[in-house]
């Protein structure tokens, strides 16, 4: 008599395609790039083992890497708090409306479905220098001096940051508005009875009650903005200045990785950068998860 197995062999057939793709394009690359980070490799010749040389070079002898690191940290520190607090305030305002919420959500959400490359191209035109760009026209109307945004070492990073904050607003807004709609109305009533004004209710009811959503959104925003690339590639591109814009003022970690790996074909060096980014993101995530657990 045939003995019935207590598990389903067919399951392996069901997961086989997914598992195979996972092994080839995720599992193997994960370790392959670790190996490559200890080698010199230009695709044409086999990788040559150099030990920790790439990391030593990056950390101690490569000012461009540190420039990219500083720019990336500046970018994250600027985009995440401003983007998230703006989205939170707008969401709090939105949730006070009785009607028309969906319309505003749709309008704010549009950039989320638009290709970042297209958005960046449009903003490049908005930021255009002299007087032709719409933003400089606005500055002149306000009595301010126009700025040569994308060709100025001071302003290129802020320009990319402004674009990114704009593009990410709707996504965060939708999260916060869903979170706020689950806060019991009685808490607001109680705060009103205690004489709290709008700001008091926002700060003492909305923000604490929203903490899980807030931490989640912050975690994702930090991870994503640490890996910023598409908009940097477009907004620093199209000039003769190379991947980083003028004086590398717009160089971020991932654009430096791209340049080393796919413009100069220094794949070992680029792999080392990838692992340093991985380390930073991993560290940031651990810190954030600790924040999550603490409450």
């Amino acid at each position, binding site marked *: 008599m045939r003995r019935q197995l207590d598990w389903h062999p067919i399951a392996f057939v069901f997961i086989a*395609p997914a598992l195979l*793709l996972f092994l080839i394009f995720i*599992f193997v690359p*994960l370790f*392959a*790039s670790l190996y*490559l980070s200890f080698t010199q490799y230009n695709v044409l010749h086999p990788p040559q083992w150099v030990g920790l040389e790439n990391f030593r070079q990056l950390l101690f002898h490569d000012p461009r890497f540190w420039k990219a690191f500083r720019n990336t940290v500046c970018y994250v520190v600027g985009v995440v708090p401003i983007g998230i607090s703006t989205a939170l305030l*707008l969401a709090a305002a939105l949730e006070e409306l009785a009607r028309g919420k969906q319309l505003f959500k749709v309008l704010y959400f549009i950039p989320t479905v638009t290709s970042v490359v297209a958005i960046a191209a449009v903003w490049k035109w908005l930021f255009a220098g002299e007087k032709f760009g719409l933003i400089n026209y606005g500055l002149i109307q306000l009595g301010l001096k126009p700025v040569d945004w994308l060709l100025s070492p001071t302003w290129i990073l802020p320009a990319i940051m402004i674009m990114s904050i704009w593009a990410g607003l709707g996504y965060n807004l939708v999260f916060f508005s869903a979170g706020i709609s689950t806060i019991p109305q009685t808490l607001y009533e109680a705060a009103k009875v205690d004489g709290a004004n709008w700001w008091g209710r926002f700060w003492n009811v909305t923000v604490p009650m929203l903490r899980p959503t807030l931490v989640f959104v912050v975690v994702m925003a930090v991870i994503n903005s640490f890996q910023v690339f598409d908009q940097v590639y*477009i907004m620093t*591109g199209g000039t003769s200045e190379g991947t980083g814009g003028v004086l590398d003022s717009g160089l971020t970690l991932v654009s430096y990785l791209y340049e080393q790996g796919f413009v100069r074909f220094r794949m070992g060096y680029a792999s080392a950068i990838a692992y340093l980014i991985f380390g930073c993101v991993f560290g940031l995530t651990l810190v954030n998860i600790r924040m999550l657990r603490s409450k």
Partner: protein
Amino acid sequence: MNANVGWRINWRTLLIVAILSVGALLMVLPYYWMVISSLKPPEELYTYPPRFTVLKPTFAPYRELFTMLPMARSLLNSVFVASSVTLSNMFLCSLAGYAFAKLRFPGRDAIFVALISAMMIPWQVFLIPGFVIVKNLGWLNTYWALIIPNLAMPFGIFMCRQYIMSIPDGLIEAARIDGYNEFGIYWRVILPLVTPALATLAIFTFLSQWNSFVWPLIVTQSSQMRTVPLIIAVLNGQFGANFAMIMAGALVVTLPMLLVFLAFQRQFIKGVFLTTIRE
């Protein structure tokens, strides 16, 4: 007194609507600027002060876009790649998701955890070996490179598994007693029930493939293989001063997804939550 309260509430609502409207205007303005700039002849494009209307609209930038670059081919590439990847993910992810949710097999949880952990790792780590593997397979500059690595993405498997877990085991047992084999159960019982999740998966897979930039940038070389976002990069690099043409290109990339979004806005906005239930 009462009238006074009523008036104050209206005034508050008005203020909120005003703030949100200014914000919404700022969200839409770049798109408006994109559209009108793409229709402006050169003498209207570079004027001071900039004009918010077009006096003599022209389709010349669009003509240039489709004649000087293989734009039509790129659109075709994007549609083909995004559709293939989407269909494949709908099938393979729900199939694997069914196995992970309802079938017992050795190593199930370990394999699943490995798949999920991969979603947490920054994509740059896979980029260089991925390129080397694709190159050694001889797939550089082919559809294979654009499609095959994305055929069954861990995120889709995760989403389908979570959804299928909520289907009662009783349904599956009943089908088994009726003599269905496992694939029959998947096809006849699971697939019809998992349709809402698959719709969300389809929308977001198509969107992410349509807008995908870095991977196509590194694995394609010839202008014939470019997807639509790469055209923007090319325009940006080679036609850097021709903003009308760049805006026309940006519109061509944006418009299809914008229309899909407006048609399925609620699914999109709800889908955001489904697509990010991690942990």
